[in-house]
């Protein structure tokens, strides 16, 4: 009896090629589209129906069974509400990390096992080996940053068919198998609001008030912003202040609704040698070296840099540009992604 794999299919090229690979490896593959929460705003439309059709088309073409799991309610509660709460608190959350932790590798995982799956699979660029989450071969596409909070139990039963492939090879395979979506442009923007900017989305939910933009060093008013929640510490554009050297967002005072900016790349608020984290997560406590010496990734696609973890404090050999509160820092030992934490 071939083993059964439930594969999350989004309609995109990565999960479509994953389906081909799993089928070739002799698994009985069941394609599943996860219907997450979406919101149609006037003039913007979430493309989920098209995505679902694309996913189903590929599944049918490959002769796979196909199902739709409805996670709308859970997604709204676990991902969207969390994200709005964080933004309201002036932080910069990462909904994709939350989606993987709460939806794909918890709800979806459990549901698949209930349906009789031996394994689950997704089209992420990552590797699962001996219960460890590891870097994908394509270091430009590696998505372990978004996956750092998934449990050991999930990793053990997850197959990442793209672990040893590079994106161009994936596209090539898609073309070879005549998948129409090999030519589809990759989706950009927030997954649950379609191609809409996050800003337009937040505007619907958060009471936005215009306020002052002040220079950090002089406290002088340089201009006005259209809502402090839209600004991320370290961000360099969109300040409407114009002229000369670029400004960077250095600080936000949400109570007074003031955004502080600085031209000085060396401004002390923009640089740090230590970062305090909360909600630390380790897949396996034993993965963390005794001396706390690890490599970290500060954002998706950023290079791995050395750091030392003591308690919840991460220290760096050299100063790094500060990371916005709410963002995740992900830990690695060699090619193993061991966990991470959220910037306070």
């Amino acid at each position, binding site marked *: 009896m071939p083993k059964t794999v439930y594969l999350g299919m989004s309609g995109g090229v990565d999960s479509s090629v994953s389906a081909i690979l799993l089928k070739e490896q002799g698994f009985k593959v069941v394609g599943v589209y996860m219907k997450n929460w979406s919101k149609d705003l006037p003039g913007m439309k979430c493309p*989920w*129906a*098209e995505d*679902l*059709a694309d996913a*189903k*088309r590929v599944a*049918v*073409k490959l*002769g796979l*069974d*196909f199902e739709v799991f409805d996670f709308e309610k859970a997604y709204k509660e676990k991902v969207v509400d969390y994200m709005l709460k964080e933004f309201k608190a002036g932080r910069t959350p990462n909904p994709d990390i939350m989606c993987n932790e709460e939806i794909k590798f918890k709800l979806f995982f459990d549901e698949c096992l209930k349906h009789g799956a031996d394994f689950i699979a997704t089209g992420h660029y990552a590797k699962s080996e001996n219960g460890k989450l590891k870097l994908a071969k394509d270091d430009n596409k590696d998505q372990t940053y978004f996956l750092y909070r998934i449990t050991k139990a999930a990793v053990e039963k997850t197959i990442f068919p793209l672990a040893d492939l590079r994106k161009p090879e994936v596209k090539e395979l898609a073309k070879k198998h005549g998948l129409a979506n090999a030519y589809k442009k990759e989706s950009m923007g927030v997954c649950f609001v379609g191609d809409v900017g996050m800003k337009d989305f937040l505007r619907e939910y958060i009471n936005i008030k215009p306020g002052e933009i002040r220079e950090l060093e002089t406290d002088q008013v340089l201009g006005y912003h259209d809502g402090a929640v839209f600004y991320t510490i370290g961000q360099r554009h969109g300040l409407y202040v114009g002229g000369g050297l670029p400004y960077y967002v250095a600080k936000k005072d949400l109570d007074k609704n003031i955004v502080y900016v600085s031209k000085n790349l060396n401004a002390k608020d923009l640089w740090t040698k230590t970062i305090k984290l909360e909600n630390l997560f380790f897949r396996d406590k034993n993965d963390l070296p005794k001396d706390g010496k690890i490599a970290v990734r500060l954002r998706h696609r950023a290079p791995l840099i050395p750091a030392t973890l003591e308690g919840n404090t991460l220290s760096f050999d050299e100063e790094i540009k500060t990371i916005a509160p709410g963002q995740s820092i992900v830990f690695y030992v060699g090619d193993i992604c061991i966990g991470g934490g959220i910037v306070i």
Partner: protein
Amino acid sequence: MIYLDHAAATPVSEKVLKAMTPFMTENFFNPSSPYLPAVRVRAAYEEAKNQIANFIGAKGNDIVITSGATEANALAFTAISCSEANLLERGANLRKNNGSTPVKSPQILVLETEHASVLENAKNYDYDTIKVDHTGLIDLTDLKQKITAETELISVSLANNELGTIQPLAEIAQIIREERLRRLKKGITTPLLLHSDASQGLALMEINVSRLGVDLLTLNAAKVSGPKGIGALFVAHGVRLKPYINGGGQERGLRAGTENVAGAVGFAKALSLIKGHQSAARKKYMRLVENLKSELKNAKVEPIFLGSSKHQLANFCPVSFPGLDAERLIFMLEEKEVYLSTGAACSASKGEPSHVLKAIGLNDAEIKGSLRISLGTLNNEENIRKAGKIIRRAVDREFERTSHA
């Protein structure tokens, strides 16, 4: 390719394209300009409007050219006498008066199986829906019961876009005439109008607005081998519409904007190619649909043919294979280059089950297994025979896949 979705779109015929081209190239002039070449373009436009109107037994001045059926339907709804705000207020008052009971006096009645472009307009007002029977045919008793002294507009399509069920418009018009008479006798001045969306069926029926007794009729070029982006609304004498797009006063000030001359000329040409051939076309499609049905009956899942056998557009063959997933069938057939759809293209893309199939009382398994097959100019005996075999084989394969699991 075997195309079986003529209810969604039709290819512009060579002759239509040829008639249109000069009005996009050498005769590009704005029909409102004063010099002679432009005046000639104006004349061509007016002539096209005449031809379109003549096709339904009307005059050029009786129609307003629009960007398609959706806009024509929206324009038809401006015939309602009060402003929208006014109507909503009236609705609110009625609700208050009746306590918790729903509004008793809707101003708008629409058939429950109407296209979204009618239903969504109705939702802006106090509205109620008229029931259909299991073939999609209007329940005239329900209509009579729901007409009140407040009813101002009744919208019933000429033929349904998913089932092809043809509605007895002349009978509906008679009911409306009787109500108008009642109102006159009582001294009630509230007007009562009949609107019909004739997007489907234009190519296969001899339509005459006087005989049908409609006050407003929506036409669509895209379903009759004309270009997309052009339609028309017939407006009977005495019906007043509100300006819909403001600007330079074109289309009697109702729908401003430089006239789509090429579109109107193409529409007129498409209709001229149909005129007089409707009866032959009906016979041709009836035969093809019969052939198709007998092939589909050999499938391992027994098909249910939907709609009315007596009152159905000849080119429609809506069918359900209960228990199968029609969407899977569509993707399997797409690989064989056989193109058809589930419900209307618009409702299918929303992922919601068709309100039309629900209205005729299909259960979930029947709705899920429903295909809309609509024939047209691209079909002939040979490709329908082929299509029948390909569809039957896909049905059989799906049946086997699901019964193994």
